[in-house]
């Protein structure tokens, strides 16, 4: 044994002395053993001072040996990016090279300037910040708040991106067992041997739970911990069992979905980069057995927070499991028998026990007798009223409950036990309502809203035999309910120890006096006095008390403090505990890493990117892409030396002068088939469809029932009973959903089938004077001459030998085609067309050029020129509303008073007085420029571009009463001046519309 590990006791504990490793704390390198937590290794090296408290910056040590630890929080630093704040030293397993720093102190843990807050504590009780920092008004944000923020917080957030991976799995089982102590293992064994599929998890590195310290436990003829290890091995070897350690059940959701987080690499010195650091398991269990144990409470007395003052069970765990003595001269302050066993174990290991101070007036029983027999002084009917020491406890001051002379007893560690709080967290999360057991002063599980049961200490069991009986019964019953009854499990277990009894609340005037600090919530520095102050100020619900004092809201989530807080508040209010408030818990049980919850959904997997079948061609052409929904769309194709502006200018000009091609594959496409297909579309769209002839196209507008434009697109009638409907890119899923909704639930008698074919067809828009010439070289079986294929027609044929659905249509105002080919052939067809088009001087154009070209013609983009508050009339599309139709979606909504109101915002064109000035999209429009703020806005610019074809800027706008204001001048006040523009019809190129027929 290393000399440095001065508190390691030879022959005690279960760690292997032959496996030493190095770790550092605040830069000081020390030695520990494989299997140590940071806490056990620090105590082995006689270090108790580990952190500073949140508010008063008081020196703090290690309170617990598990997840309930409020004080010993450290910053773990694996490397620059792999750093984690607020890690509980009692949970962090060390590895060779492990490094951690203390937090919330400056310049050092020993000398922390922030400790001045402790001196100022009379001025800063609970909620003090609500009462001051109000003058002068601006000073809160400028002065007070920044300083408070700097003082608050604990560790430091990482500043580099996390290189580690995280994972996520789903699982199903007959029985999920939460906790692998005696209760959990026995329950899992019973269920598994009956034949059930079982998952069992435990938050700790090893199984056993309380058996790690409960040395007198015997199960099945073995020592308790030996039995636990053997049983775990047996379970792990069974095909129907999955045993997960270092795995915390943190969320109990609806219908028995329990979420676990498994820590996979954090305890390892080295690991593969692709091994997930943590994994979340979402387990859907037929039945859940909660075997979460109990958590020991501390005693609430003055100065109960010095380093070296800890839970009795923690000291016992450090000794019996880690082989570490927490001191050489320890005192004990208890209200139950269980702390006696800590004293007895320590005494037997050679540690002096200065005295056991017992709150009970006449403690009796085997534990007390054993302690006395070992020569330990027992002081009954008394309490610790204060302690001494600065960075570590050095003495305890003991006084009889009745008062009188106090006695100072030197100690170097002080163990406390106020009793055991059943861990009802998961039960409560399952939406169960806990029940207050007045006799024992505990909250216990009540009725079960889900198929679950609690066993062992979390269910109020106070002895091992009771625990084993409950666990076996539950395991067997749940297995049977899942239809498994292969074998019954018999086990006998027992222990001389009892976990009953205790006290809650502040003892011996710990809530009195001006300077007394008896901590209830260590991390948040909440004292008994603070809770009484909250009550005095009118906080009567425990929720108000919690929020006012922040009791139970620290990173330990009140595991040791909640019951004390309730008891103190109840006493101050002179009410029963349940009248002050029931304890309810929400997930997570312990803090859960964001990354684990994110799992794989990072970077590229955050959201899938959709690429069209022609994507590779755009990449090869050097396109810049824009995000549209999930799609990556080619935005423009810059050539050498071109910026976006130059590229778009070239593209739009080339389309009108020669021809261009555009990847329109992202458009939504729905095939509507059946004898009632025309009737169906007639109802879904504002336009009439029944008279549309096969082989013809129609532009359609879809509204919701409220009468506002929802989507638009071109519909082809392929045959009497078959339509090819196109939607906007972003609207594809919602249009399909809306159509299905009406078809399935409003008009189920219509004989129609809907099929999404968005992914089946690649779409190439070929537009411009040369479009026909290019296309003619490649198509077969279809006459595309102007006479045979008029604007807004549909034909089927073949192109390059593959099937083609050909739309003779235009979204540019030029003569054009939209060529649909099966997706797999999209790229080949694109490339063939591209070769021929570019040979004639044409080019590919992207979404930006498409936007400019359509704006030059005044064609709208739903979602840009409309925004969910625009009717077809507003958009100048009243012609597309079937006036003779008896019904269609939106027919009634658009007749509401406000939608018929004159002077609504209507879509118009704008030409700036200075043709060089391009308005900003989203800019607001006023009638008179020299108004005071707030101005009366009459509309806004929806689309605005430099039009190289027009040689000037063009814009579209929604303007109140715009249709009646043609020729009028409006004003666009910008930060650097007012822009004048004239309202015009929104058509800037080929007003007669002859070019589409070319």
């Amino acid at each position: 044994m290393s000399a440095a590990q001065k508190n390691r006791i030879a022959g005690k504990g279960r760690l292997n002395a032959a496996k030493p490793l190095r770790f550092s704390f605040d830069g000081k390198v020390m030695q520990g053993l494989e299997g140590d937590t940071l806490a056990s290794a620090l105590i082995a090296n006689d270090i108790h001072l580990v952190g500073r408290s949140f508010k008063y910056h008081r020196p703090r040590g290690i309170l617990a040996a598990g997840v309930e630890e409020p004080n010993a929080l450290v910053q773990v630093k694996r490397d620059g990016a792999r750093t984690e704040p607020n890690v509980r030293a009692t949970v962090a397993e060390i590895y060779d090279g492990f490094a951690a720093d203390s937090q919330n102190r400056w310049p050092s843990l020993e000398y922390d300037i922030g400790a001045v807050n402790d001196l100022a504590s009379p001025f800063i009780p609970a909620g003090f910040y609500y009462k001051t920092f109000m003058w002068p008004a601006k000073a809160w944000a400028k002065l007070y708040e920044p300083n408070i923020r700097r003082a608050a917080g604990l560790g430091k957030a990482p500043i580099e991106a996390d290189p580690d991976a995280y994972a996520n799995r789903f699982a199903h089982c007959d029985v999920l067992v939460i906790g692998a102590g005696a209760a959990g293992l026995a329950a899992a064994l019973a269920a598994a041997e009956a034949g059930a599929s079982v998952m069992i998890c435990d938050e700790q590195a090893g199984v056993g739970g309380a058996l790690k310290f409960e040395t007198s436990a015997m199960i099945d003829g073995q020592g308790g911990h030996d039995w636990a290890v053997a049983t775990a091995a047996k379970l792990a070897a069974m095909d129907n069992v999955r045993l997960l350690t270092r795995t915390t059940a943190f969320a109990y959701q609806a219908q028995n979905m329990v979420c676990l987080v498994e820590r996979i690499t954090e305890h390892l010195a080295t690991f593969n980069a692709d091994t997930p650091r943590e994994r979340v398991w979402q387990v859907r269990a037929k039945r859940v057995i909660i075997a979460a144990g109990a958590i020991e409470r501390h005693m609430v007395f003055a100065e109960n927070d010095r380093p070296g003052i800890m839970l009795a069970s923690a000291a016992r765990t450090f000794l019996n499991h880690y082989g570490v003595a927490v001191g050489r001269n320890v005192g004990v302050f208890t209200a139950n028998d269980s702390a006696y066993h800590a004293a007895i174990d320590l005494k037997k290991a050679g540690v002096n026990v200065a005295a056991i101070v017992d709150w009970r007036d006449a403690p009796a029983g085997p534990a007390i007798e054993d302690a006395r027999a070992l020569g330990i002084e027992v002081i009954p009917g008394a309490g610790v009223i204060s302690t001494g020491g600065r960075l570590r406890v050095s003495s305890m001051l003991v006084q009889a409950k009745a008062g009188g002379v106090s006695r100072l007893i030197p100690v170097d560690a002080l163990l406390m036990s106020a009793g055991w709080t059943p861990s009802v967290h998961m039960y409560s999360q399952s939406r169960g309502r806990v029940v207050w057991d007045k006799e024992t002063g505990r909250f216990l599980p009540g009725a079960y809203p889900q198929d679950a049961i609690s066993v062992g200490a979390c269910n109020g069991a106070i002895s091992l035999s009771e625990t084993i009986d409950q666990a076996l019964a539950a395991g067997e019953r749940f297995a049977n309910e899942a239809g498994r009854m292969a074998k019954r499990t018999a086990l006998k277990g027992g222990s001389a120890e009892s976990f009953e009894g205790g006290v809650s609340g502040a003892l011996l005037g710990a809530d009195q006096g001006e300077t007394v600090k008896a901590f209830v919530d260590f991390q948040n520095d909440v004292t008994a006095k603070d809770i009484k102050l909250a009550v005095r100020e009118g906080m009567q619900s425990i929720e108000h008390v919690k929020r006012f004092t922040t009791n139970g809201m620290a990173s330990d989530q009140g595991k040791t403090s909640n019951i004390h807080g309730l008891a103190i508040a109840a006493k101050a209010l002179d009410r029963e505990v349940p009248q002050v408030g029931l304890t309810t818990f929400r997930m997570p049980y312990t803090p859960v890493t964001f990354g684990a919850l994110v799992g794989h959904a990072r970077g590229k997997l955050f959201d899938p990117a959709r690429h069209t079948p022609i994507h590779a061609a755009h990449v090869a052409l050097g396109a810049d892409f824009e995000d549209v929904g999930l799609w990556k769309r080619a935005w423009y194709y810059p050539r050498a030396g071109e910026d976006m502006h130059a590229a778009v200018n070239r593209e739009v000009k080339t389309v009108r002068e020669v021809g261009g091609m555009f990847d329109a594959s992202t458009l939504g496409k729905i095939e509507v088939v059946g004898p009632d297909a025309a009737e169906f579309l007639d109802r879904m769209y504002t336009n009439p469809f029944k008279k549309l002839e096969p082989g013809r196209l129609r532009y359609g507008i879809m509204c919701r029932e409220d009468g506002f434009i929802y989507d638009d697109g071109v519909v082809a009638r392929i045959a009497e009973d078959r339509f090819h409907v196109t939607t906007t890119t972003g609207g594809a899923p919602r249009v399909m959903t809306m159509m299905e909704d009406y078809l399935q639930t409003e008009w189920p008698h219509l004989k129609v089938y809907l099929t999404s074919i968005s992914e089946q067809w690649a779409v190439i828009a070929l537009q411009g004077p040369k479009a026909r010439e290019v296309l003619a070289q490649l198509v077969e079986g279809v006459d595309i001459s102007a006479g045979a294929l008029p604007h807004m027609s549909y034909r089927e044929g073949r192109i390059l030998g593959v099937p083609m659905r050909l739309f003779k249509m235009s979204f540019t105002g030029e003569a054009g085609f939209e060529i649909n080919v099966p997706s797999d052939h999209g790229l080949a067809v694109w490339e063939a067309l591209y070769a021929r088009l570019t040979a004639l001087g044409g080019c590919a154009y992207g979404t930006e050029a498409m936007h400019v070209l359509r704006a030059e013609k005044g064609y709208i983009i739903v979602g840009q020129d409309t925004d969910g508050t625009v009717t077809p009339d507003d958009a100048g599309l009243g012609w597309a509303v079937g006036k003779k139709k008896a019904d269609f979606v939106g027919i009634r909504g658009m007749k509401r008073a406000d939608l018929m109101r004159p002077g609504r915002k209507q879509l118009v064109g704008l030409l700036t007085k200075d043709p060089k000035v391009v308005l900003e999209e989203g800019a607001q429009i006023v009638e008179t420029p020299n108004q005071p703020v707030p101005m009366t806005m009459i509309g806004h610019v929806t689309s605005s571009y430099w039009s190289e074809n027009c040689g000037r800027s063009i814009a579209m706008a929604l303007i109140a009463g715009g249709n009646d204001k043609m020729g009028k001048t409006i004003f666009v006040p910008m930060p650097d001046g007012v822009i004048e523009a004239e309202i015009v019809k929104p058509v800037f190129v080929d007003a007669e519309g002859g070019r589409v027929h070319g």
Partner: protein
Amino acid sequence: MRKYSVFALAREAMRAHTGWDRQWASPEPKADYDVIIVGGGGHGLATAYYLASQHGITNVAVLEKGWIGGGNTGRNTTIVRSNYLYDESAGLYDHSVKLWETLSQDINYNVMYSPRGVMMLAHNVHDVQVAKRHIHANRLNGVDNRWLTPEEAKDICPPLNISKTARYPVMGAAFQQRGGTARHDAVAWGYARAASDRGVHIIQNCAVTGVRRSGNGHVTGVETTRGFIGAKKVGVVAAGHTSVIMEMAGVRMPLESFPLQALVSEPVKPCFPCVVMSNTVHAYISQSDKGELVIGAGTDQYTSYSQTGGLHIINHTLDAICEMFPMFTRMKMLRSWGGIVDVTPDRSPILAKTPVPGLYVNCGWGTGGFKATPGSGHVFAHTIANDNPHPINAGFTLERFRSGRLIDEAAAAAVAH
């Protein structure tokens, strides 16, 4: 009411803080009141305070079924901003921001209004168009909001990932400096204290079980778990439970109630200086004065009164946060919770008279009501006192759904293409 100040604190420090008064009284309910406010959240308490302080109506009771501030007031992510598009919304929310600016002094309670700035990210061309439309409208309405380039956004918020290779690269942001956060509990308690001081009765653990009306249809009071309490006027400010209360008066509402979850991380030293929101990546985040990252996003998909939602919603929210701030994956979720948000069809609130004489309703704040607490209480008090809306809330009627004159902030952000 004893004034809160640093001097009062110092004085009390000398006597172990034994001299503080109860922040608000808890009297037994009287037989009747001039006005009953149903719902002791921030909006209800603010309404009571302004009834007393602005309109001299002090014979007022606030009835709360649980503990005050225990609903959405205590369950939100405390964001304050007013950069709304439409004139009506900008008017209402900016009225509120102006009240926030002096609220701590007005009610002598530090509500910790922190104008640290609200940044709303734009990730695509459509987001940019929408953001600029808001910025220009805000400017002409006198509401601060300005455009930031990605680099400017990162200067203000260093953790922001502005990499061009991100799944949804940041193309810029709208930034309202006067936006920020406030301390949610303090708002409820501060208004309660100030209202109580002016004679308002704050009655907790008193659930309304019925609305009583006279022969002519006028409200005469409410049935409660503590018996009938008469009132000349009743204002319903019950958030997620509005439909339930209004149904007692025979009024069917254009509302649905959804669970909205939020979460905080463990506390860390200051690392996040402002509020960041993203509609496209879909989450919002700030850091509390205590050091916790405060995070929220959208609602669960089904209506519920359970204040509980699914973990998958939290997962998606954190996906978004870690996409924008990749250094936060090693942070840990400390607490999560849920509220019940009442959502209207146009996502704007209703602050109005109802078809029932003497009955008024303030509801429909959806996921964004906290920011409006002072303004909402202020104009709702006016509406009740005068039986007529304040010009600022005149548009937020129940009738707008019939006429079609909606205030559709959500539609204005419609997804493009």
